[in-house]
C-alpha cells in the first residue's frame, strides 16, 4: 500500500511538472503559429506535431540520446547537476511533456484561432499593450480551449508509458509511475495490485474531467461569441 501511494504521488508529480512546462511553451508556440506569419512556419507546425506521429518508444530513445552526455542537453545537465537526468523523475517529466506537447499546442492553437483578432486590435487601440491585451482579451476568450488543452496535456502526461520507460526506466520509488507499475505487476502476475492501480487511474481520470467541467461552468452565461460579418 505504501508503495502504491508513492507510485501515485510520483505520477502526479511528473504529470503536474510536465503540464506546468507545456502550458507556457505551448501557449507561445500556439500564438506563434496562429497569429504570426514567418518563414518556416509550416516546418515549425510539422515539428511541433511530430511527437504525435511517432511511437512513444522512438521519442524515448531520441530523448535518451539527447539527455546523454554526448548531446548538448545532457552536457548542460551535467554542468548544472553533475550528472545526466536519464533514469530520474526529471526524465519521466520530460518524456511526459514532449509526448503531450502536440496535444497542448493544437488545443491552444484552436482556442486562439477562435478569438477574433480585431478584438485584440481594438484592445490595443484602447490603450492596452500586447501583454495586457493577451491577458484581458485573448486569454478570457480562449478560456475553454485553454482549459481543454491543459486537461488533455495532463491526462496524456499521466498515461505516458512508452517514452518514459526508455528514458526514465521503471525504478520503484524513483521513476516508477502508475502505467509502468501496472505493467510490472501484470508481468509478475500480481493482478490484485495491478487492479488497485487501475482503479486509482479511473478515479484520477474522473477527478480531472470533473475539475475540467467545473472550470468551464465558471466561465458563466452570456459568454457566446458576438456575431458579426467579416
Amino acid at each position, binding site marked *: 500500500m505504501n508503495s502504491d501511494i508513492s507510485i501515485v504521488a510520483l505520477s502526479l508529480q511528473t504529470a503536474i511538472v510536465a503540464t506546468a512546462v507545456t502550458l507556457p511553451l505551448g501557449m507561445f508556440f500556439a500564438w506563434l503559429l496562429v497569429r504570426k506569419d514567418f518563414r518556416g512556419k509550416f516546418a515549425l507546425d510539422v515539428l511541433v506535431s511530430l511527437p504525435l506521429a511517432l511511437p512513444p518508444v522512438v521519442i524515448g530513445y531520441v530523448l535518451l540520446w539527447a539527455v546523454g552526455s554526448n548531446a548538448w542537453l545532457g552536457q548542460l545537465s551535467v554542468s548544472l547537476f553533475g550528472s545526466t537526468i536519464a533514469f530520474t523523475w526529471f526524465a519521466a517529466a520530460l518524456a511526459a511533456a514532449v509526448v503531450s506537447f502536440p496535444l497542448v499546442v493544437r488545443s491552444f492553437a484552436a482556442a486562439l484561432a477562435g478569438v*477574433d483578432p480585431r478584438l485584440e*486590435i481594438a484592445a*490595443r*487601440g484602447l*490603450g492596452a499593450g500586447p501583454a495586457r491585451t493577451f491577458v484581458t482579451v485573448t486569454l478570457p476568450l480562449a478560456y475553454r480551449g485553454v482549459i481543454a488543452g491543459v486537461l488533455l496535456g495532463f491526462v496524456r502526461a499521466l498515461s505516458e508509458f512508452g517514452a518514459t520507460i526508455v528514458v526514465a526506466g521503471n525504478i520503484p520509488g524513483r521513476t516508477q509511475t502508475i502505467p509502468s507499475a501496472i505493467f510490472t505487476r501484470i508481468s509478475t502476475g500480481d493482478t490484485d495490485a495491478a487492479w488497485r492501480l487501475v482503479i486509482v487511474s479511473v478515479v484520477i481520470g474522473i477527478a480531472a474531467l470533473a475539475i475540467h467541467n467545473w472550470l468551464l461552468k465558471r466561465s458563466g452565461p452570456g*459568454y457566446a461569441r*458576438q456575431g*458579426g*460579418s*467579416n
Partner: protein
Amino acid sequence: MISFDLQLSRSGFSLDVSGVFDDGITAIFGPSGAGKSTLLNCIAGSLRPDGGWIELDDRVLFSSAEATRVATWTAPEKRRIGTVYQDGALFPHLDVQRNIEFGYRLIPESSRRFDPLELAEFLGLSGLLSRKPAELSGGERQRVAIARALAISPNLLLLDEPLASLDAARRGSVLNYLKRVHVEFEIPMIYVSHSVTEVVSIASKAMLLREGRVAGFDRPSALLLRAAAMGSVVGADPDAAGPDAAGTPTDRFENILDGVIGESTDHSTIVRVGDIEISTRRQNRNPGDSVVVSLGASQIILAASRPVNLSARNIVKGMVVEVWSSGGMVFTEIDAGPKFIVEITENAMSELGITVGNEVFLVFKSSSVDVFDA
C-alpha cells in the same frame, strides 16, 4: 489636425495617399478595395506603412527613415485614437460598463476628460450597463462602441463603416448620435464609408479614394460632382458586390435630416426641419420629440414655379446650389433652409432650365417621408 503622406504595398494592392484633415468630420469614401480601411488602419496604428509619415496635432505617429532621417513609430496603444468598427468589435466577455471602461482605466487620470457613466447616459445606454454585447441590438452595440472609444478621451475618432451592419432606422439614429458627439465633445472625426448618403449628411469634407490613390478632396457634394465627371461614381465599381454595389448614388441617395415633431391631425403629422415644415404620415409620437427624417432623392419633384391644385402635401421653396450629372441622371443640391439632394432626368433639367442660382420648388408626398427615432 491630422496630416499624412504614406505609402504601402501589398500583393496586388498599393496605397499612396496624402492629406491634411482639419478638426471637423472628414469622410473617406470610395468603392470597396479603394484602400479606405487600410488608410484608417495606418492612422490607428494597427498597420505599419512602408514609407512616409503621419502627424496628429504636432505629434509624429509614424515616419520612415527616408521621410525624416530617423524612423518614428508610436504603438497603437500610445496614440489615443478611438476607433469604432463596423460591427462594434465589443469584447463579448465583458458587460457594457466594462467595455466602456476598458480604455478609460488605462489612460492617466489627468487626461480623463469624460466620465464613462456620463458617456453611457449621453448615448442612451444607462439601462444597459450590465448587459453583455450578445444581448444588445445592432444600434445599441454601435453606441457602446462609440462610448468605449470616447472614454479614452481620444485626440481623434476613427469610424470604419460604423453604420454598415445596421438597418435603415438604426442608421439614422446612430448617425444622429455621431453628429451630437461631434458637437458636444469637439473631437475631430474621420468617417470611412461607401455610402454617399452618410458622407453628405455628416461630413464637412470628403476624400475620394480610388485604387489606393486620392481621386478628390473637397466638400462632399462638390466631390460627388467631380466623381461623376470622372465616371467613377462611388459604388459603380463592377467588382464590388453586395452593399458596395448598392451604394451608387443614382439609385440610393437618401436625404437625412434632423427634425422635431409638431402638430398632428387624424392622418398627418408635421415635422419641423430647420425653418421648414414637412408633412408626413401620422406619427405616434409627441410634439417636441426629436426625429430623423429620410427622403429619397428620386422621390422629390422639381417645379420652376409654385405648383397649384396638387395632391402632394409638401411644396418647399429653395435655391439651386449645385448641379451635376451621373449616368444619365442629374443631381441638384437645393438650399431650402436644410439642403436637399434631388434627382431628375437630363430632359427634365433642360426643359425646366435649371441652373445654379435658380429659384425652384421641391414637391414630395407625405408618404415618401420616412421618420425614425433620433
